[in-house]
């Protein structure tokens, strides 16, 4: 259908406004063929509007959208190809399973639109239903399905006619936690197996990390950071991303030393602690904030004297979380949260030695 050399989806300077309300200020990204890109962000950040604009269900104010080599929207030329001519597929948050049809008819819909019929149609529908393990349900009435089953049928319907691009609008958000984590893996496997390009929208961090090739973190209509899941997780660009990704300690202070070539930076906090970190290519100002993940700290009962990034801290309390133990420490007047495996090295009120590798202390850019 489309060439594989060009990016399968290319969105450039897209902006969406409704009257005076700006849903998407401006956003650009590309998705390579066979890859999955996730738009991640809190509600109201414009991720769903962006997805719907790609689908053709929402009319953007400006920018361009290309699917393969075909331009489907161009604000400056007034080009806006309607959704039904964009040749995509989509899984909706509410599943949008047609209640007046059987499961089979739901899944067959896209094929019938493409004038398929007879044995070929039947075979493709059953193949799609088998893929989502809903084979025995073909003749069921769609209105008699559970949420999880509807989800699977929606997925089968979306893949049945072998589209090259599938859009996912928070498809797992209405499932319970256990089913969600199962479907996360299944969906990822399926996407890989079919080699289909997908654009995925979610507010769920774990979902984004587990399923995506690339992630764009959005905030109030703008891309806050884009990168691989590991990049986003390890090197959040701004305080917002670090906070949204969660479980990070933010440590601020004046910059006392920095080496642009080595990419290192040293800050001194208000409490007098000196912290060595990495700039990750980010600009260094007179003050800096480092993000250190809770799991990247280690606690020791004793320490080598004068080592880098080793500080005494008083244990305030520890909380048993099952797999992990969460320890809260008083670190020169600031509270630091550490998560570690096994019991804490000291009791509450005692002093322990806190350590973090400088490479795990990433400098943030000033937020907006």
């Amino acid at each position, binding site marked *: 259908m489309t060439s594989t050399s060009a990016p399968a989806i290319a969105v450039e300077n897209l902006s969406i406004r409704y009257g005076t309300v700006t849903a998407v200020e401006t956003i650009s990204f590309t998705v390579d063929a066979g890859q999955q890109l996730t738009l991640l962000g809190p509600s109201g950040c414009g991720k769903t509007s962006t997805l719907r604009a790609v*689908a*053709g*269900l929402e009319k953007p104010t400006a920018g361009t959208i290309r699917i393969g080599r075909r331009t489907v929207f161009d604000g400056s030329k007034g080009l806006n190809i*309607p*959704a*039904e*001519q*964009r*040749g*995509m*597929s*989509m899984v*909706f*948050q*509410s*599943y*949008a399973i*047609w*209640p*007046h049809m059987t499961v089979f008819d739901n899944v067959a*819909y*896209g094929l019938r*639109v*493409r004038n398929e019929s007879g044995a070929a149609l039947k075979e493709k529908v059953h193949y799609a239903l088998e893929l989502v393990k809903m084979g025995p349900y073909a003749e069921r009435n769609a*209105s008699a399905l559970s949420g999880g089953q509807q989800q699977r049928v929606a997925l089968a*319907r*979306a893949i049945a*006619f072998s589209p090259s691009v599938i*859009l996912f609008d928070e498809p797992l958000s209405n499932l319970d936690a256990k089913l969600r984590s199962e479907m996360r893996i299944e969906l990822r496997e399926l996407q890989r197996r079919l080699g289909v390009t997908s654009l995925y929208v979610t507010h769920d961090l774990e979902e984004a990390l587990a399923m995506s090739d690339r992630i764009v973190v959005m905030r109030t209509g703008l891309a806050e950071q884009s990168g691989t899941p590991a990049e986003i997780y390890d090197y959040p660009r701004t305080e917002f991303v670090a906070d949204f990704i969660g479980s990070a300690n933010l440590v601020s202070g004046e910059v006392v030393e920095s080496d642009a070539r080595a990419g290192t930076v040293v800050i001194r906090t208000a409490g007098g602690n000196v912290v060595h970190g990495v700039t990750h290519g980010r600009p260094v100002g007179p003050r800096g904030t480092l993000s250190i993940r809770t799991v990247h700290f280690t606690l020791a009962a004793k320490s080598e004297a004068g080592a880098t990034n080793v500080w005494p801290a008083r244990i305030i309390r520890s909380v048993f979380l099952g797999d992990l133990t969460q320890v809260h420490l008083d670190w020169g007047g600031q509270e630091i949260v550490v998560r570690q495996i096994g019991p804490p090295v000291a009791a509450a009120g005692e002093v322990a030695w806190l350590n973090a590798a400088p490479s795990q202390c990433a400098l943030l850019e000033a937020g907006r």
Partner: protein
Amino acid sequence: MAAVGGVESQPALPDFRARVRLMEMVAMATIVATVAFLTLYPIYYLLQASFDVGLPDTRPPTAYGIANYAKLLDYPAIIWNTLLVTFAATAMALVFGFMAAWILTRTNVPFRRALDQLMTVPYYVTPLLGALAWSFLGAPESGFVNQVWRKLGGTEALIDMTSPFGIAWVMALFEGSVAYVMISAVMQSMDPALEEASQVMGASRRRTMWRITLPLVMPGVLGAAIFVFAEMLGSFAVPLVLGTPARFYVITTAIYHFISQYPPRIPLAAAMGVSLFAVMFAMLWLYRWLTSRTSYVTVTGKAFRPRLMDMGGLRWWLFGIVAFYVFLSAVLPVATLAYAASQKIAVAFPAAANFTLEHFRQALSINAVRVAMWNSLILGAVTATLGVAITGMLAWIILRSKIPGRGALEYLAMFPQAVPRLVFAFGMMWAWLVFPLPIYGTFWVLLIAYLTVFMPLGVRAISGVILQLDKSLDECGQVCGASFLYRLRTITAPLLRPGLLAAWLLIFVASVRELGASILLMGPDSKVMTPAIVEAWFSTSSELTAAMALIQTLVIALVILAFGLLTRRVAHHGAGAQ
């Protein structure tokens, strides 16, 4: 009802619990018996009368038989007229309602919210006022439209409101607003993603329309059609005003005719009433069955924001269509009556000297009119107040209690909906004539009639409010240790207040403009306004009648306005509490 809370709050005293349970059962039995008496007692006498083939004017009947029903076949014209008018009116009302619903829920028509509000205005204008006004506009000889038409060179009458289609037209204009409310609710309850899914998967707009949209809204539209048909079948005011002078009878006006002529033909009228009631009952049962069985759309009860189609320049035309409907059903009738009432003799092209305020002065000075208006307002206020209390209690028992028998109670309370008010009042009249309590011909019988016929209205309105109220709000108060009455005062009542006030206004307006029941049950000393207007139409000048109808509409409008201003603070307070 206080017992409901008491059951859980005293778990340690089984003896007390048993006593509470017993009291609860006794209270419930009393309530069911009262509601059953109110709704079924008149129907019993109606049935009795319809099978009465004994000596005339002797009660109880001396012989029973089906001769009265057989006699119905002697009046094929009435059956044919009824079917013709009902089908034509239903079809037109559905077209109006469907078009307006589609325009207002699915297109980017300008001023959508204002139009949506305006679409409910015809309901307040009332079919009676509409019939009076359209009679001025479209009577074959004197109708304003026909006068203008002749002035323009036409020879025949352009429109004839006394014809079956004229009657159907006026009925449809006012029922269209009901159809609109029902159909737009169906359209709003459809998840827009259902259509979007079809579109994204490559289906053309036409395919989406035929395969997805129509199949999904059809059951709801069909339900609305049956409901509207049943309503039209029982409609009385329009055929009475427009048809009777031309001796064109539908079943309701025929029943009225047979009751009020001398000598009255009660058994025949009763047989007609029972037949009409049977058909309506079947229709409403069908409606219930259809909407409960195939309503995949409304299954969540959630209102979605449908996707609005961009209609480009066409949207102003669509605006024009809806605005024109509101003009025909609300603005034009009121304007016409004002125009007619302010002339000595109403014509389309009056001389300056023809204008007068005499009719208004006269309408306000006739003692009978003033008394009737006053009676209507008092009766309306009492009905609304008692009605909200009674139907509120019924709705609460039906929806929130676990007392056995509440299902039966629901059926009994909703039963009067299936009976045209005229027929119901006929049964009441016949019943109360022989009841040992001498209230026939007094306000009491009108009050009882209003409370009974508007019971479904109240129960439905208040049920909607109760259903919106999350059960856990009350349960939370219970866990906090509040007694039932304390919770009622601090949680339930404040949250229900806006809904209860709305229900009060609904019942008040319905009572003040009530015609079908009042026309049979009012006595010489218990005149109310709407039947007085109809009497004036047939016995005095039509200009005076127009003035009376306008005054009634104005008074109702003022009450609604005053009520709105008075309760805005209360309603706001109530909403704030949520």
